[in-house]
């Protein structure tokens, strides 16, 4: 069993411009079951001559039984797309779009509070489970390998980095989850840790955090209380200056808690194997798993 996605994933892709189409093709090549495409004005057409287009998410869900949505629409329309997918009753919504205004995400989080839909992102690489060939997002399918390490990260490229290091040391992944680099985002480290802890396929966990916010500290608190599986963690941005946004909207040192050193300290106190450099994730996991 993977977490979040799997053999039963029936994927709907919303926003098939240049990047969305490219990624939808990679997703299909990887073997994921893409059942619907949503793009305004293409009702009745087919994506790559095979996947039906719809103008609305509700119609797509009704006709195809899609249960998972991924969003590539431009940032000004991302809030609307998330709410449309939530209203259509999708179980999982992954918003890849970068640059969504933070006040839009604030409204989204309030709106979905009591709804059954789980949101991942915005500004994230999505979820991939190698064993079930389920790729919802942009994690490259050619770098992963089935296995028993769960990966959760705020950064896309550092997720790939961790995967490559694990593979290099002979370890595959159960599921890789990029939760995104925005300060206000759906699924958190803590949520994913809970899922990995309950997942039979996952034996160990890689957690990659970065400067900004207090979510790594909250993850540390959760690990201390609830996680029995070994966790290897790295925090990016120990060399970043205070007060400057390091690309990600959420990656900014605004106070002491936002520092990499504070996050490392909290994770170490929770029994996590913290590596000094993100280059050492694979080697450390190998050592931990023996």
């Amino acid at each position, binding site marked *: 069993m993977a977490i979040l996605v799997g053999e039963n994933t029936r994927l709907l892709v919303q926003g098939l411009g240049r*990047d969305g189409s*490219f*990624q939808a093709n990679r997703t299909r090549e990887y073997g994921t079951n893409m059942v619907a495409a949503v793009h305004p004005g293409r009702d009745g057409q087919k994506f790559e001559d095979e996947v039906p287009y719809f103008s609305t998410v509700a119609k797509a869900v009704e006709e195809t039984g899609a249960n998972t949505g991924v969003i590539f629409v431009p*940032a000004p329309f991302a809030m609307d797309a998330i709410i449309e997918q939530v209203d259509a009753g999708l179980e999982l919504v992954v918003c890849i779009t970068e*640059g*969504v*205004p*933070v*006040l839009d*995400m*604030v*409204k989204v*989080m*309030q*709106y979905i509070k009591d709804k059954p839909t789980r949101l991942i992102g915005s500004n994230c*690489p999505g979820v991939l489970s190698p064993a079930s060939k389920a790729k919802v997002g*942009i*994690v*490259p399918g050619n770098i992963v390998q089935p296995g028993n390490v769960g990966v959760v990260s*705020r*950064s*896309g*490229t*550092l997720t*790939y*980095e961790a995967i*490559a*290091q694990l593979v*290099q040391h002979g370890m595959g992944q159960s599921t890789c989850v990029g939760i995104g*680099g*925005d*300060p*206000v985002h759906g699924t958190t480290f803590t949520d994913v840790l809970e899922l990995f802890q309950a997942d039979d396929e996952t034996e160990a966990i890689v957690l*990659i955090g*970065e*400067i900004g*916010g207090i*979510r790594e500290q*909250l993850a540390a608190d959760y690990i201390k209380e609830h996680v029995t599986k070994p966790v290897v963690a*790295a925090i*990016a*941005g*120990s*060399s*970043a*200056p205070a*007060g*400057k*946004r*390091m*690309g*990600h909207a*959420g*990656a900014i040192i605004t106070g*002491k808690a936002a520092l990499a050193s504070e996050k490392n300290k909290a994770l170490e106190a929770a029994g996590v194997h913290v590596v*000094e*450099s*993100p*280059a*050492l994730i694979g080697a450390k996991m190998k050592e931990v798993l023996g």
Partner: protein
Amino acid sequence: MNIHEYQAKEILDKFGVPTPHAEVASTPAEAKEIAYRIGGRVVVKAQVHAGGRGKVGGVKLVDSPEEAEDVAAGLIGSRLVTKQTGANGVPVEKVMIAETLDIKEELYLSIVIDGDVGAPVVMASTEGGMEIEEVAEATPEKIFRVAGDPLIGLTTYHARDIALALEIPAKAVRQATKLITDLYNVFIENDCSLVEINPLIITEDDKVVALDAKINIEDDALFRHPDLAQLRDPNQQDPLEQRADKADLAYVKLEGGRVGCMVNGAGLAMATMDITKAAGADPANFLDIGGSADQDRIEEAFKIIIDDDDVEMILVNLFAGIARSDVVAQGIVAAAKETNATVPMVVAMRGTNAEEGIQILADSGLNITGAPDLAGAAEVLKEKLLELGGSN
């Protein structure tokens, strides 16, 4: 995006938040005229995008229009170096001339997004005039925090709670409550990432006034505020950061570093800075070229790094997903040849079309040492730094 104090004041005025009477001047003569109009003792404030200006002569009290003119003459056209700027400082092109008020109390009020709460949060403290970080460190119990509701906003009773926590005199509570509500609306309606009033003052006659104002607008929301987007003052930016902005590159100049970093992805870019530091040298910049950069943008990214006088070596770290290694390699080679760059480079390329990219670099004749991955890049960089000599 930062805006100037005088621009922030204009926004506050529009939303009904009381501020001192003030006007902005671009010449000493204008400063004199404004000071004369306001009358009496005025304060001359350099308009720069940097905190800490008061400590370096950027804010001065003067007693006459002539003195205002003199102070303005000294400031306008100069560069102000504060603890928040680099050694080059930032240019002063305008000064704000403001009336002085009789201050009874200095307070602190700000609004930011708290990502962990998922809402805008109003922070208030009776310790006005101090930096809130220092207050948070020394006396965290003196910071009062209230989150606004994402759909309802900040209720009046919450604003009143804040006024009471600030120990506002009874007869000014109603006015303070309105000010706090209005300030919250400033934050929401302008898609701010920060609204900070430090100090918020109570005057001798019990009026509550925003004596200073700092407003940052969220970059990602500027598309729906074309009027605010025009407030951008590129002259306040580092020239290299300004060029990066134009090329749509996420770049931050880091003071004094000597290893230029060229990376795709924000997380990997930070990690690359971290391994550079661990290898014994300070990184010269943060740079995320993004996933969909074409060759022109890669070339400009490389030129920005090269044009940084501090850069003695370049570390390229690419893990291409959407990005294509061959395009990045072509961009680097083209830019290096055009600029006759001889700076040594350490390059790690993985992911989409990595082999093609590595081949293009190998055939280029440039001073390049390959590295297999992040850990390998750290090792190669360390060796190369030893060869290069020097320190930091």
